[in-house]
């Protein structure tokens, strides 16, 4: 039974998405409740899968009962089990938040469509993480790209259309590049299954090096465009700043991370470290990551719009993750995977609290935060916790990931990277700290400095608080998730 849970989860999410147009006609409240129940069910079952995988080891699920040479299969390892849990947990929190927040951003006639798209989004992300097939990944990637663009454009405002269009075009160039890479891999191996193709690549690598090199190049560039890795990040600030707040949180905290999971799969499971090092890929990745870390932060400094600033900060943080991957060591990968989780939580908290400021005060400009900490104490406190985490203050999950990254860099004997890491941390402090200082310490001439009770609706407040608590808890007890990540890294490097 437990082996069928992954596919049942996917089917459940998809069926919910398909039924929403009909349940919405009954009442919108039931739709929300049904959606929440479904997400909770999926959350519990992913938790079961994780516990099962931890005790019994990874398992394969063959669709249609055909063996992996001829059919499609799911590979449920500790990596995929853990990341599906991460995706669904954050997705559930953002879903709860969005049930009120969409009133602010989306027309009433589009509520049902928004949730249809949201469930298909979760469906495709789960599919990408589970599947062990190159072409199946492409199909899910296309579902993901079309849904991500449409949860931006659903706001139906001027700037959303252009942002979504640019995002869609780049997404499609990325997908087709990835498909071209798959074609080249298929040409020399004859398999689409990642494990079988990887075995075959090890054998034919000396016969047809051109295929492997060009395929790797196209696949990495394709995924980099979608993951907003530094030179291909141009779509991200527009898309993240114009989207509805719940969509921005989803995009920045989960969707981009799922593409990085694809990248890890391609680099480590398909191609393998030996070939990567023979081609000097780690050096390229290091340069890209380091420049992304600096340039993202520098651009973020100059922004006047809060959500746009958070978007640029994401580019810098993705640089940290890529840096961890580029070290190609078990310490580096541990740091990268930990930072995926920790950045996911922090960015979600930041975007959701930013959405709360927009929801109640319509406050987007960074220079207007004076005294806001007294009017919205709880959301501002969570914003501060997440911001401190971004800077890397001890006690937050951000500190643990930066610490791990630093250790990994020292282990690889690359001192200049440590300098860049510290510089990027300082830059982070330069744009997050002023907001907090303004909010709590500066006077607002119109309002008196009396702590007010927060007027935010409960369904929006609860996810923000839960995210804040999670950041602190993971920061204080990192071993709770570190054991899973270390097991996953051991599996990837085996």
């Amino acid at each position, binding site marked *: 039974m437990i082996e069928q849970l992954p596919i049942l989860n996917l089917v459940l999410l998809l069926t919910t998405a398909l039924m929403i147009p009909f349940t919405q006609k009954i009442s919108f409240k039931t739709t929300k409740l049904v959606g929440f129940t479904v997400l909770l069910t999926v959350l519990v079952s992913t938790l079961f899968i994780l516990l099962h995988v931890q005790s019994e080891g990874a398992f394969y699920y063959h669709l249609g009962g055909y063996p992996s040479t001829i059919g499609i299969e799911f590979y449920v390892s500790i990596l995929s089990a853990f990341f599906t849990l991460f995706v669904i947990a954050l997705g559930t929190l953002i879903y709860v938040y969005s049930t009120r927040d969409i009133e602010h951003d989306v027309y009433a006639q589009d509520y049902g469509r928004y949730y249809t798209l949201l469930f298909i989004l979760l469906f495709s992300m789960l599919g990408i993480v589970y599947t062990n097939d190159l072409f199946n990944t492409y*199909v899910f990637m296309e579902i993901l790209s079309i849904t991500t663009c449409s949860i931006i454009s659903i706001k139906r405002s001027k700037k959303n259309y252009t942002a979504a269009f640019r995002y869609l075009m780049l997404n499609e160039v990325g997908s087709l590049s990835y498909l071209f890479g798959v074609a080249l891999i298929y040409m020399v191996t004859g398999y689409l299954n990642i494990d079988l193709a990887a075995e075959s690549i090890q054998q034919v690598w000396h016969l047809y090096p051109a295929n492997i090199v060009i395929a790797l190049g196209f696949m990495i560039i394709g995924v980099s465009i979608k993951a907003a890795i530094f030179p291909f990040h141009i779509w991200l600030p527009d898309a993240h700043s114009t989207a509805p707040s719940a969509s921005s949180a989803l995009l920045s905290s989960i969707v981009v991370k799922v593409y990085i999971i694809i990248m890890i799969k391609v680099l480590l499971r398909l191609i393998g470290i030996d070939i990567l090092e023979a081609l000097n890929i780690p050096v390229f990745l290091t340069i890209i990551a380091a420049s992304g870390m600096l340039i993202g932060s520098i651009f973020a400094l100059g922004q006047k719009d809060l959500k746009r600033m958070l978007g640029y900060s994401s580019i810098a943080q993705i640089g940290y993750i890529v840096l961890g991957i580029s070290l190609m060591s078990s310490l580096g990968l541990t740091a990268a995977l930990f930072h995926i989780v920790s950045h996911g939580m922090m960015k979600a908290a930041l975007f959701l609290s930013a959405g709360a400021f927009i929801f109640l005060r319509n406050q987007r400009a960074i220079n207007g935060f004076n005294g806001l900490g007294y009017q919205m104490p709880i959301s501002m406190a969570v914003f501060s916790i997440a911001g401190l985490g971004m800077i890397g203050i001890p006690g937050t999950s951000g500190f643990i990931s930066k610490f791990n990254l630093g250790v990994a860099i020292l282990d690889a004997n690359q001192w200049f990277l440590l300098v860049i890491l510290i510089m990027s941390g300082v830059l982070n402090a330069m744009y997050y700290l002023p907001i907090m200082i303004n909010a709590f310490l500066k006077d607002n001439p119109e309002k008196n400095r009396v702590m007010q009770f927060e007027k935010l609706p409960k369904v929006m407040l609860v996810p923000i608080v839960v995210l804040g608590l999670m950041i602190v808890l993971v920061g204080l007890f990192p071993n709770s998730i570190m054991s899973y990540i270390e097991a996953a890294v051991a599996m990837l490097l085996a």
Partner: protein
Amino acid sequence: MEVLKQIIENINYIGALALFVIGLYTVVTHSNLIKRIIGINIMGTGVFYFFVSIGNVVGGNPPIVDLDNGNLIYINPLPSGLILTGIVVVVSITVYSLSLVVRIYETYGTIDQDEIAKIIDQETFDD
């Protein structure tokens, strides 16, 4: 002469690569949004053409089994199957981007990327 013979024998692959590059060029250089969408389509057909060419076998038969004659050579059916999926996916993306173009034209009055950028700059300057 040898080179020419090689080119003619592998014209399918070369044509596919040419289409891929032309499509990419159209997407990157043109500022007209509909032209960009056509570029994506050309790029897509280039990739699909490449994929189908991989499955071709010289002297093979179409992948429909002849039950009376068991000794025929068939082409590789897998690339064709994958590309069927791919074509429909690209059509979906095209339609969605076209509907975005309709909305962009209604709000900005133009479908040229450069002019839209000018209008946006003007607006942020006015604020």
